[in-house]
């Protein structure tokens, strides 16, 4: 069962609707008990880094989530801030992230070569998959997704970048290490491109 972590952040309904349209069983989970039978995990999120970690801690699901992802190697994909909290730290907050894909989250204005493009990075941008482990299958030639963010992921090991996009400069808009994926954009709001990515995740 695909389990969508409902810890009070992100558009849970949009994910459920997408999977329902594909006839793929999925459910929202709010407690550790409900998470127990997860074979795929979607970790959504919007808003601020510390707030997301705080809510995840308070949900009571974190210990089992760690056990499933780190111990049992259950595939997980973090979305938007749900991706950013896969990192160790963020310039947006003081607290620690999950640290499943080592790296840090930076503000666009602290890119090595700063640009003065409008922020947030908002709208449809091209995505170039690299070392994606099949998440972008069928999207190698044309992948466009909807972005809405001012912070971006900088993986400690460049090999953990699963796809890149460009806004002023190239950045990792998807990361992957083993069974852990993260995407900065919103597949649940990216029409057929997003549907394909979520379908791929279900079939990994």
């Amino acid at each position, binding site marked *: 069962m695909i389990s969508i972590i409902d810890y*009070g952040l992100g*558009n*849970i*309904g*949009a994910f459920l*609707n*997408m999977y329902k349209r594909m006839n793929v069983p999925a459910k929202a989970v709010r407690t550790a008990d409900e998470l127990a039978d997860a074979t795929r995990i979607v970790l959504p999120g*919007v*808003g*601020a880094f510390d707030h997301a970690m705080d809510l995840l801690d308070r949900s009571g699901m974190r210990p089992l989530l760690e056990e499933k992802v780190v111990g049992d190697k259950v595939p997980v994909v973090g979305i938007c801030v749900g991706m950013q909290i896969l990192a160790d730290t963020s310039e947006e907050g003081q607290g620690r992230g999950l640290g499943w894909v080592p790296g840090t989250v930076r503000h666009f204005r602290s890119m090595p070569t700063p640009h*003065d*493009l*409008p*922020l*947030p*990075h*908002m*709208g*449809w*941008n*091209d995505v170039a998959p690299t070392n994606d482990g099949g998440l972008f299958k069928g999207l190698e030639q044309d992948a*466009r997704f*909807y*972005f*809405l*963010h*001012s912070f971006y992921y900088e993986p400690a090991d460049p090999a953990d970048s699963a796809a890149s996009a*460009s*806004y002023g400069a190239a950045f990792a808009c998807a990361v992957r290490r083993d069974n852990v994926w993260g995407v900065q954009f*919103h597949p649940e*709001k990216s*029409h*057929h491109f997003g549907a394909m990515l979520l379908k791929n995740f279900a079939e990994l």
Partner: protein
Amino acid sequence: MLRPRIIPCLLIHEGGLVKTVGFKDPKYVGDPVNAVKIFNEKESDELVVLDIDATVNGVEPDFAVIAHLAAECRMPLCYGGGVRTAAQAKRIIGLGVEKVAISAAAIERPELISEIAAEIGSQSVVVVIDVRKKMMGGPEVRTHNGKKAHKLDPVAFAQEAVRLGAGEIVVNSIDLDGTMKGYDLKLARRIRDAVRVPVTFLGGAGSLADIEALIREVGVVGASAGSLFVFKGAYRAVLINYPNPDTKEQMVRAALAA
């Protein structure tokens, strides 16, 4: 390449979808949920839904309607109309809406922008500025469907809104609303140059050529339209429409190459 956003703007009045001219004479054009379903199929870049009754009637946003629209919407959705508190904005985001638009309440009490940004993040806070040209002189900010004038310069207010935490500015021309004569390119240029957040222009688009002209003038921005996406032909027959992906891509590339 980040693309300009081409955005249908849907107005809700007495539960139905309407289109106005000069912010007046709402004409019924259909059912909002049905329109959302059509724009899903057409894969529109985003959708803006504005309830034009809530503020003038002094009522709360209709959360049940918003929840219904958000559940149907498979593209990013921006809702506006009657939002006066950070708690309301948070509740709307919780319903599955990506962005919340505020206008009258932000003009009357600009700190509201910061309060909402603290609750839902700047990236989801949209400030809509309705603009009308004065009889003599430049443009001024209006609210309450254009009826209430404020002694505010739209460019200065846009900058103030961004300073307080707005993540996007939408500029809506009252004079051009429903006229399908093209955008106010001069005002678009002034706003675009004044702020470093995404900006979206609404009011006046009558054809894809008008959108192309806007992008040519101000680059990667949001180009929103009402009439263009709900009417077809000289007699304004109601037909929900949106450019197909190839046409849109060609137009965008041509406009940005210039």
